[in-house]
């Protein structure tokens, strides 16, 4: 189990301040600090944008992340549940032909899906999430359905970010594990959709009026990231980075939540 975090530049041409992202990563090391990784996007507007992936099998060191001119910066710090290997293959993001995924949480039933496991030798639960989504993509499912069909059958904690390479879209979702989110400029909490499966128009529709700001998400609550994304909801950062909103929901089980 681990921590995930990121900063997304929404709207105009704002660049992510390296110090902000490094500080965010350092706060997340409270949830694990045995390796770190992530991806950086610089070429917003390209079709699709090109992810620059970084992985290090060592404690978090923000100076090693290629943050120059970043418009999307995503991170993951690692606290492995079973696997103690220092091999880079165990460091998130995990990767398939079309996907990059980072996961915080612990699955209880991943062994039931061996065909989805992208690395049987490593046998990490996160490998089943990305493998399952890729499996459904290979079967012809659209990306949203591929995510939903995979995560809905997995029992356990999930807080994930997923980069879809063909479209350059980013997806976030969670079950139990938190993803706190907020924005800067103005520094108000993100207005998230209501519980109960109702998909609402995101507060980020203000982008259409020309506003620009940074969206921050994190496994650790802080002064900017204070609102929890809804459980069982898939959120999308559109490929043009102009919109971040909930787009689909999926069934989930949370033994700590009164339903």
């Amino acid at each position, binding site marked *: 189990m681990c921590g995930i975090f990121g900063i997304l530049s929404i709207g105009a041409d704002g660049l992510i301040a390296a110090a902000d992202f490094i500080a965010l990563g350092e706060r997340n090391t409270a949830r694990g600090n045995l390796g770190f990784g992530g991806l950086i996007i610089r070429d917003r507007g390209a079709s699709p944008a090109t992810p620059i992936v970084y992985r290090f099998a060592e404690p978090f060191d923000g100076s090693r992340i290629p943050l120059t001119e970043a418009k999307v910066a995503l991170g993951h710090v690692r*606290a492995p549940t079973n696997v103690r290997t220092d091999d880079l293959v165990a460091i998130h993001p995990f990767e398939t032909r079309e996907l990059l995924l980072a996961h915080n949480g612990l699955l209880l039933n991943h062994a039931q899906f061996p065909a989805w496991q992208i690395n049987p030798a490593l046998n990490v639960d996160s490998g089943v999430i990305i493998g399952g989504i890729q499996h459904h993509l290979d079967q012809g499912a659209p990306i949203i359905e591929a995510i939903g069909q995979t995560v809905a059958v997995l029992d356990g904690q999930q807080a994930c970010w997923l980069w879809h390479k063909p479209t350059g879209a980013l997806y976030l979702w969670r079950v139990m594990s*938190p993803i706190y989110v907020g924005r800067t400029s103005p520094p108000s909490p993100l207005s998230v959709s209501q519980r109960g499966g109702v998909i609402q128009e995101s507060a980020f529709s203000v982008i259409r009026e020309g506003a620009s700001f940074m969206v921050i998400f994190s496994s650790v609550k802080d002064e900017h990231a204070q609102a929890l994304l809804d459980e069982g909801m898939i959120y999308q950062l559109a490929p043009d980075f102009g919109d971040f909103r909930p787009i689909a929901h999926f069934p989930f089980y949370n033994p700590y939540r*009164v339903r």
Partner: protein
Amino acid sequence: MSEQKPDCVAIVSGGFDSVTLLHYLVKTEHKAPAVISFLYGQKHSREIACARENVALLGLTQHQVIDLSGLAAVFASSALVDAAQAIPDVETVMGDPQPPTYVPNRNLIFLGLAAAYAESIGVSDVYYGAQKHDIYSYWDTTALFLERMNAVYALNRKTPIQIVAPFVNHSKADILRVGLAIGVEYAKTWSCYAGGALACGRCPTCAERLAAFAALGLIDPVPYAATT
């Protein structure tokens, strides 16, 4: 109930899981457990009164309450022990591999003492109440942990101890079903970590307990200060 020679040891904190386990051992498995409980400086030490009450209810006569509260400094990094640390809400600990509610090496220490007690009274089985979702936060509740502890105790030359966790694949709701079927009185259990007169309704164990009752369409009889 007449005094019976113990045939196993059960670790009972006085909480939801371990009290259900105790009733299950007596009423379903027809065991005669010697019970062991621990004071370790926990804020919610009132759980021990619940352990005592259930031991008495079941007519058990062997109950060791081991006072480790002098060792509270050993466990002081835990929010369950350290007065300066607030008990976290459930939302903030989810996905945390070792949240503030983790008590350093507590389960291994308790199991070690329970194994010693078992050896002293000449029984082989030590029962404890680990359940399915404990592993989200605690490395010392996993099936792998249990397997390796048992591998160590199998080395004992005269009294190989076996640690048994019958509910390790049960959710809290599953345990509640078991308990209700055998007449466990959940008003006589205490789970909340916060140490108040009323359960907080917000800490991880309160949240899980409330959800278990709700899943069965029931109301938890324990009084709550707040529910979420």
